[in-house]
């Protein structure tokens, strides 16, 4: 750009100032290490767990699903990741003294809320097949509820492994461990099945799972942009599920307006090549309400169909 075209000295000065400002802005941006990965998580901290007394739950169950005295145990375990140890909270539905004989469902919850929010759902699982039939372990990831630390993809898996270790210490064996992952919880749930650290789970259950961060980006933009354009996140359950050999149960709302069934759950289900898989697509089911839209009894029957099938 010839300078004589820029007019007066005053204009050149003005342009220099503007360019300097832009360069400064660009420099700041270049040196920034902003990352949206932490914003994947939506942790809620609380001081006390309320369980059935939690008022915000939209899905209170009928009294027939109530737990009996002594059937709920709150406990803590230590979760280790990258040399740091954090105390995380868990709640066991069932009798801890019979874990060495029982079949247990490890429930990996979603991104919103704490154990309180998911308590009604785990009561449903607890009463699948028969009253108080399965043991259910619910826990809060790092940064959620009363658990210490900060959430991350790696922390989700570390926390789930810490819970599996706790179950193993109570006498559980892998053939009696089932893992249920809802939404965000599909990340540790699938990882536990593919890369078990202690016990190898026998079955995998997924509700409205995340397909991949790439799929989320594509859904949000309408363009084929990869996840690495905006965050250091590596979740790709659509690929990881190919390594899952355990039987798979998948339930997804057809009307899910957050993690669309066609771009998240369906590819996961299709890519699973294990010994058996079962799908439940729920008309009008949205993200988070699918079991309740399906109906409590149909939901439990659906779970039973899968859980009781001989493999």
């Amino acid at each position: 750009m010839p300078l004589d075209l820029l007019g007066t000295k005053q204009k050149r000065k003005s342009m220099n100032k503007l360019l300097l400002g832009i360069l400064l802005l660009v420099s700041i941006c270049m040196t920034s290490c902003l990352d949206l990965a932490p914003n994947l998580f939506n942790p809620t901290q609380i001081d006390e767990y309320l369980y059935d007394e939690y008022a915000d739950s939209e899905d209170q169950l009928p009294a027939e699903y109530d737990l009996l005295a002594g059937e709920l145990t709150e406990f803590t375990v230590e979760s280790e990741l990258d040399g740091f140890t954090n105390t995380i909270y868990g709640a066991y539905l069932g009798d801890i003294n019979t874990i060495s004989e029982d079949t247990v469902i490890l429930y990996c919850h979603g991104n919103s809320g704490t154990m309180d929010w998911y308590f009604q759902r785990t009561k449903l699982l607890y009463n699948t097949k028969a009253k108080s039939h399965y043991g259910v372990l619910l826990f809060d990831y790092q940064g959620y509820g009363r658990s210490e630390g900060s959430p991350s993809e790696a922390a989700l898996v570390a926390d789930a492994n810490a819970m599996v270790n706790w179950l193993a210490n109570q006498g559980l064996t892998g053939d009696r461990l089932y893992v249920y992952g809802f939404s965000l919880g599909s990340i540790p749930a699938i990882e536990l099945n593919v890369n078990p650290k202690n016990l190898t789970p026998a079955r995998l259950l997924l509700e409205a799972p995340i397909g991949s961060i790439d799929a989320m980006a594509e859904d949000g933009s309408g363009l084929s942009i990869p996840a690495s354009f905006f965050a250091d996140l590596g979740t790709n359950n659509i690929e990881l599920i190919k390594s899952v050999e355990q039987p798979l149960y998948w339930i997804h709302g057809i009307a899910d307006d957050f993690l669309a069934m066609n771009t998240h759950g369906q590819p996961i289900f299709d890519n699973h090549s294990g010994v058996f898989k079962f799908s439940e697509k729920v008309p009008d089911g949205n993200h988070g309400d699918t079991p309740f839209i399906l109906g409590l009894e149909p939901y439990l029957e659906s779970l039973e169909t899968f859980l009781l099938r001989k493999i």
Partner: protein
Amino acid sequence: MIRIYFLVFCLMAVFSFSCSTNRFVEPLDKGELEIGGNGGGPLLNFGGSSIPLPLSSVYAGYGYSDDLTLYGGLHITSLAFKTLQLEAGARKKLVVGHSIYPSVSGALAVNGIVSLRDGATRVFPEIALNPYWRYGRWKTYTGLQAWFDFYKFSTQNYGYGGFFVPAISVGQTVDLADWEIGIEYKRLAFNVPSENSVVDYIVPSGIGAHGIYLNASRSFGYKAKTKIDE
């Protein structure tokens, strides 16, 4: 009720989604240099409020001739999140308007995006056609714009993805001495379902998104002033 608030997380998911104003709708005069910036993006629901995504970019253009402007841009918000997005294009005046008939200009551009994390790259060609009316210091314009995406979507086998992402727009600018400020509305991606997206776009039809953008630029050429005076 588990509506998970990934909204901030998803800001970057719309980076490359027609996320700036139409560039140099009225081509610069020969030798004229203009530098500007814009901010805004698709409207979404954030904590119960309607806000445009705070995407931003800076750009510069040079009047190669009286009816051909060459320009380039750098997207600032994406850069802050380790993604380099550059655009380069050319804008040509196609029709000289008179009376109520608008002038028309067209643009060809390319948008290159590189992840500074892993080097992942995308290149999206872009075309635009813009009728505009100038009356004194004021300029009103409309536009039809399209991005082309030739890459394979990770979920392509499930009926998602397409190579054509269009937008229509309308904008208004006013010249203030050497400065031009403007506002632009865009109807984005009206062929792409957005209802089941992680981003809570405010669009009743469930298709695409509405976008609002603000723009400011400064001219550094001799003729910018005369254009206003005409």
